[in-house]
């Protein structure tokens, strides 16, 4: 066989071979000599030696955003449940612009590793004619429990692009319904009976996600060493991305600052 045709064969076979091969992990996990454990500024620490923590805060720049009132007059049962005015939770900020309800998660860098779904169910509740929590994080194939403890009926309508879309009715006093999602996605959820209700369920293949509280902080614990892309998602302000490289036992701190339109 001539040299030229031999190389041609190799190229063709290699092209097929590479296109079919799974992504190989680019990391080498080296064993640690010491058993020290990474600690983050907020005190979160990785449970296992060698694994690190990615922590930080999420803020929104600019002056405080005025929130609108939610009008629940359409359903008297909802209206009666609240003694004072109900404010929209689309943007909830704390001190220094700390932003609540941001999902911070690893979007890339874990390769093809698979993670078992936790046995306990993730709980999504309809309370006071609002979703509680407004933003929920869970793993794919984990059980999602949908609860209605309100004295009025709700329908819970998930609107995914990459998963099954379902729409289930829950009258008051009904027992919880269970559902699950197969694929990663951040899924908006709404109630057609009460149009002001909005919620979001972030479904991930892995357990490295966190939802910020009013102080805007997050901790991704027990992250193996490697190169990662971390994303921060907010329902109104969109997505911010940062890359981070984690060595063994390391803690990295990131800050995400959302800049609404018009703010420099």
């Amino acid at each position, binding site marked *: 066989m001539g040299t030229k045709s031999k190389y041609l064969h190799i190229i063709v076979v290699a092209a097929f071979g590479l296109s079919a091969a799974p992504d190989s992990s680019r990391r080498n996990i080296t064993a640690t000599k010491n058993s020290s454990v990474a600690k983050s500024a907020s005190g979160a620490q990785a449970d296992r030696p060698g694994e690190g923590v990615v922590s930080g805060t999420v803020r929104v720049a600019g002056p405080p955003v005025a929130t609108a009132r939610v009008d629940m007059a359409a359903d008297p049962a909802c209206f009666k449940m609240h003694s004072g005015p109900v404010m929209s939770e689309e943007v909830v900020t704390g001190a220094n612009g700390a932003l609540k309800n941001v999902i911070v998660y690893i979007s890339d860098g874990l390769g093809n590793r698979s993670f078992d779904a936790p046995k306990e169910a993730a709980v999504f509740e309809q309370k006071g004619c609002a979703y509680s929590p407004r933003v929920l994080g869970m793993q794919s194939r984990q059980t999602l429990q949908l609860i209605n403890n309100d004295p009025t009926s709700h329908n819970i309508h998930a609107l995914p692009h990459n998963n099954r*879309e379902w*729409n289930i009715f829950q009258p008051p006093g*009904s027992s919880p319904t269970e559902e699950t999602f197969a694929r990663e996605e951040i899924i908006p959820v709404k109630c057609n009976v009460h149009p002001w209700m909005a919620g979001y369920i972030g479904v991930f293949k892995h357990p490295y996600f966190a939802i910020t509280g009013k102080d805007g902080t997050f901790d991704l614990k027990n992250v193996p060493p490697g190169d990662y892309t971390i994303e921060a998602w907010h329902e109104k302000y969109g997505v911010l991305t940062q890359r981070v490289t984690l060595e063994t036992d390391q803690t990295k701190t990131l800050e995400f600052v959302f800049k609404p339109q018009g703010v420099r």
Partner: protein
Amino acid sequence: MKLLRLRIVPRLVLVLGVLLSLRQPAHAQESHIGGLTGDARRGKQLYRRYCVGCHGPLGDGRGENAPWIDPKPRNFVAGTFKCRSTPSGDLPSDEDLFKSVTRGFINSNMPSWLTLTYQQRADLVAYVKNFSPRFLEEKPPASVQVPSEPASNQQSIQRGNELYQKMNCWSCHGKEGRGDGPSAQTLVDNRGYPVPPYDFGTGTRFKCGDSNQDLYRILMTGLDGTPMPSFANSLTSAQTWDLVHYLRTLQLNLKHKPPKAGEERRDSSESKAVGEEPERRANRF
């Protein structure tokens, strides 16, 4: 080795052929409706002739006509179908798709395809299934069974009325079922287009069949892609029949009487009924 004695081009073709054949074979879907087996390859020719103008060559509902019509043509790639006999969020059965093609969707631009033969419609169903990967990954679950209907009487209608209030049907459908409830203006379908709730005053414009059995089934399956949820977890079968009886009292058009309880319905969910189609549905636009 004999392979090495071939000239370079045939050798490469041989190698490529072997490698290509080792990849996953693309499944051409089949459909099974009653005794019919539909074949997607034949369905493709029919789709190109009859369906592509609205549903698009990629089956995503973006055909040439799509911008001008409302409601929009179904996006088959998403795998979400409105008129099914399976629980909310699940795939339709082949027979559900067959009935949708046959019946058409009243008050929309989807006509009744009764003019095609049974085999042609079965072939179209098989081809439509090819567009969404869900049909490869999931099997449609068992269809919801509609139990026999009890007689409608004053008590049943009264209970149905109470259920209509309690289940918040009025918040979308309105106090008298005219589709003018407080939430009605806010309703959108899964593509973001406004979708009005059904106006029960007419009694004839149900898109997924208009017998009492069809109404029962809609309450159990919900209408995927729309705000209408499934009540499978919230209503017993007796309650569902009460609600159906109440809903019939809302219609003003008394000339259209649904079949009485106990009468055999030809478009019920049994496969054996495929051979007969209700002829009054033809030419209805």
